């Protein structure tokens, strides 16, 4: 295939961007096809249940739903390319405006959750590996299991109740920064802390038992340096890989968390759009969400290649 031969000679970055665009195109097409698969008449969705046939026809014409699918598809792709994502009838605003407003909040939430997960999960895992077999190790092990079993919305509500209501340390939802960010980020990242700590523990233990660390100890390098400089680097690769895979789940969790805390992000928006059957908004959210995942994925991969030169 042409794409394959071109890829062999192009630089890695170009290849990467090419792959991302390909994925994006695939998502767009899939979304497009799905809108025809769902049993909602887009015209009726705009017009509401009390519209007459005439009104529906008019709307249908204005939405150009009478044109052949192929034409609609091409127009759809074209407008997506210039980021004209259509008009949201439930909010009476262009979709791009809505998403532009909401995206930063979700991005902030996701990134905070990821940082929380990596730092806390990483630290727990490292310490558990260094003191493997000890009490801390066992506590972390059990703790991780418990945390993963807890439903996120429940955790969110409990945190809100205890730290927001009872102790009053944090606001009861809303979008104030940075206080309003803490509890939602914690909730979203908690499950991640659990599995991150487990993976880090496993890879760090392996690294500690390896010949590499034996060589470092043989040279008398201080243990702190061995762990913080070498073991962290050695253990980093797998974490980032799994994190990239986990992004989809993270975004899904973001929907719930945003609902619980009233965080004005895209998750909330998408949820409401679904309820309102606001197709342009739904599709817009899917597209932006996909771009978001693709970009973070690319960043994580870059970080991983930087950290582990063997993968170059």
């Amino acid at each position: 295939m042409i794409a394959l031969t071109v890829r062999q000679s192009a630089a890695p970055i170009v290849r990467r961007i090419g792959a991302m665009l390909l994925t994006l195109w695939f998502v767009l097409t899939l979304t497009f096809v799905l809108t025809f698969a769902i049993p909602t008449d887009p015209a009726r969705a705009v017009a509401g249940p009390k519209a007459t046939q005439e009104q529906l026809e008019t709307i249908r014409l204005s939405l150009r739903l009478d044109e052949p699918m192929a034409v609609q598809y091409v127009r759809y792709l074209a407008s997506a390319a210039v980021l004209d994502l259509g008009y949201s009838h439930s909010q009476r605003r262009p979709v791009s405006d809505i998403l532009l407003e909401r995206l930063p909040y979700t991005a902030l939430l996701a990134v905070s959750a990821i940082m929380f997960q990596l730092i806390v999960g990483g630290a727990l895992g490292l310490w558990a590996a260094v003191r493997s077999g000890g009490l801390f190790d066992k506590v972390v092990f059990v703790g991780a299991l418990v945390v993963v079993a807890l439903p996120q919305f429940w955790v969110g509500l409990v945190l809100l109740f205890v730290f927001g209501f009872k102790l009053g340390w944090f606001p009861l939802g809303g979008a104030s920064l940075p206080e309003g960010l803490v509890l939602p980020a914690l909730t979203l990242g908690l499950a991640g802390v659990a599995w991150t700590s487990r993976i880090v523990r496993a890879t760090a233990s392996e690294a500690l038992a390896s010949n590499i660390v034996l060589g470092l100890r043989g040279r008398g390098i201080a243990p702190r340096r061995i762990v913080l400089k070498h073991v962290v680097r050695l253990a980093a690769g797998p974490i980032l890989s799994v994190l990239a895979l986990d992004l989809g789940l993270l975004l899904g969790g973001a929907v719930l968390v945003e609902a619980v805390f009233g965080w004005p992000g895209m998750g909330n928006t998408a949820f409401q759009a679904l309820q309102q059957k606001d197709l342009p908004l739904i599709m817009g959210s899917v597209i932006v969400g996909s771009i978001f995942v693709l970009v973070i994925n690319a960043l994580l991969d870059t970080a991983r290649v930087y950290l582990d030169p063997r993968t170059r």
Partner: protein
Amino acid sequence: MTKPDTLGVQSVAPILVVEGLRTFLTPDRGGVTIPLVERFDLSVDPGERWAIVGESGSGKSIAARSIMCLVDPPLSSTADRIEIGGLDLTDASRAAWRNVRGQRIAMILQDPLTALSPVFTVGNQLVETIRRRPVSVHDARDRSLDLLRQVGIPDPALRLNAYPHELSGGMRQRIAIALALACEPQVLIADEPTTALDVTVQAQILELLVTLSEKTGTAVVMITHDIGILPEFAHKVAVMYGGRLVETGTVSQVLNTPLHPYTQALLRARPGRSSSAERRRLPVIGGAPPDLFRMQRGCPFAPRCEAALSTCSEIKPERAMIDGRRVACHLVTSSMGTAG
């Protein structure tokens, strides 16, 4: 190459003294502790090169690590005495050992791929080790270039920025040697440093070790299963079997007139000594290498020894001094009529 043939009068204090080293395995849930190395003694003079020879199960690698106190639970090691460069380390703390490692005694491992960390450049790792002493980064870089040159790496400036996996096995082993010598240790322990390398590269590395040892006066203790390298490399040799030293002496003594049945069998069974036109069957040592988890009483070699006496399976032989060398064998001691 200077090769003293007999154990002359020691006028210089040994640089490494190990007495009564023992390492054992303590299984987690109680049960019997299993000795992996017992009664290991070693006395190395400055600049001297020793080879510790044995097969799998001989405990040689474990002994090497125990000398540097690098064994981890469930293994643990103790010794009656360990002295490096005059410094008594018998009951030293972990911090004291950490200090000593790299600076007075250093180690080279078998697999060059994992001896170096794959995620940092060669230069980064060299500088890290050199800077255990207060040295500026700039001076450390200069010294790393110097070290790389010493170990015979062409284009050292280029290699500083390379990652280990970009280099060949021979080069990685040279860098491992450079790392070990970075802080000018007095003793170098090399655990099978050439086993994972190609034959022609093995010869290079051995030659390098000899040259460096002579130039810097560093003593080397090499762990190996390959007797063939002894004449070119080592002054003295210690043969291990089943966790114990069975014979020690100078290389020419032990290779030319082996006293212990295991040493004799090993030398006989070694392939590669016939250039005759006819193929012949190789003399074998019957049985299998010892299983340290199921050691019987008595001499560990007794089950495979052709000349075993009844005492051999009952009582472990003590090392006796004969002709300036040490042998642990009932046959030898009884025939000599001496002990101690």
